[in-house]
């Protein structure tokens, strides 16, 4: 983790037009989204296992992971907006990936609103697990399938250079993959702290 933070700033980078030094943001911005999807995926998994086993601990884990995922979404959005301002010239563009992330955040905000609307622990857990599962599938459709069908400013879509062709060379990969793994581990750690906190509170 520390390695990717520090080395991300120091490592040599390939020469790219327009992007230039800002390619370093790859280590932060893209890995945030990887971590977010991992967290939401974990939350989805625990929601399913709650419905099948009716164990409230699973519900606590599910919420903790969703909250951590939300944190990564916020970070990913912020880093992405700054990057977009300097490379595309605007904070926000009508791009399928941006729409996808906005909708994802709205979905999980709605999930938290739903949780706050109920008091009874077991019923709340069951109903929010139902929403969680439905929402995750919709989110995967929106961020995973729709962008592939339309043009995007992001690499890999609509005639833009692919992710793996020339912009991600081996030097970047050396930092990028550890960064993804590192952030996912940090996310798991934060989520486990939140989970333990919830367990203490209840």
């Amino acid at each position, binding site marked *: 983790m520390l390695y990717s933070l520090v080395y991300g700033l120091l490592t040599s980078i390939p020469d790219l037009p327009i992007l230039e030094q800002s390619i370093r943001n790859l280590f932060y911005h893209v890995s945030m989204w990887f971590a977010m999807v991992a967290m939401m995926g974990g939350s989805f998994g625990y929601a399913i296992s709650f*419905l099948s086993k009716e164990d409230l601990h699973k519900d606590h884990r599910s919420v903790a992971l969703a909250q951590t995922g939300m944190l990564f979404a916020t970070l990913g959005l912020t880093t992405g907006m700054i990057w977009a301002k300097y490379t595309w010239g605007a904070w926000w563009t009508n791009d399928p990936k941006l*729409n996808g992330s906005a*909708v994802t955040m*709205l*979905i999980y905000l*709605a999930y938290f*609103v*739903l949780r706050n*609307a*109920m008091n009874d622990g077991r*019923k709340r857990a*069951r*109903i929010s*697990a*139902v*929403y969680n*599962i*439905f*929402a995750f*599938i*919709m989110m995967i*459709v*929106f961020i995973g*399938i*729709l962008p592939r*069908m*339309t043009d995007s400013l992001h690499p890999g879509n609509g005639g833009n250079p692919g992710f793996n062709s020339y912009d991600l060379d081996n030097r970047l990969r050396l930092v990028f993959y550890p960064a993804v793994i590192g952030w996912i581990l940090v996310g798991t750690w934060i989520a486990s702290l939140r989970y333990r906190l919830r367990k203490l509170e209840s």
Partner: protein
Amino acid sequence: MSIEYYMSKIRPLITRFFQQELRNSNALFSLGLYLLGITYLIYLLGGNNAADSTWNTLLWVVVFFGTVSQASRSFDFESGDYFFYFQTLIGPGPTIIAKLVFNATYMSVLSFLTWGLFSVFYGNTVFSPLLFAAGLLLGCIGFSVVLTLTNGIAQRTNGNATLSTVLAIPLLFPILKLTSALNVQAMVGVPFIDVLDLLGALAALDIAIGLLAYLLFPYLWQD
């Protein structure tokens, strides 16, 4: 459980839902008035000069709010004795299917009515009506799945009406995005082969979320 057994439970339920709706003329008229009023409002504000994509956007906004307000009454019956009756006699499976079919039909009628009103006031510029109708229909099926499930959820939180809208809106975006893309293509008149992947994606999405709603609904019913 066999299919015949299921059908024997579902069919009377659907007829019952329709009878209930027709008897409740107040809600029916208010929805009709909403459609007429909002279409005329857009006309007054210059909607008759709208370009194709704007025409389509306006149509979907009107349909969107119409369906959301229609669906918000989905589970009104689910309070008190009625809920007990449904829970013991019919069970969650047939109830959700009947409700989905009812809502999808209702919303399709609503959206075709809106299309008719739009044609009267702003002129019908749709190049291939069949494709446009398919887009409306598939969109309404998806809408009915999402809205029925979120209304079921909201109902279980003691009838918080705004909550169902909050829950539904972000989930409706993927469907809305696909259908409006399809409908814009239908207005321009793109060859059928070129929109096959959009059509397929929409149909697959509808089927997937329909199955998901059917699987998840029983969990909402336990107390």
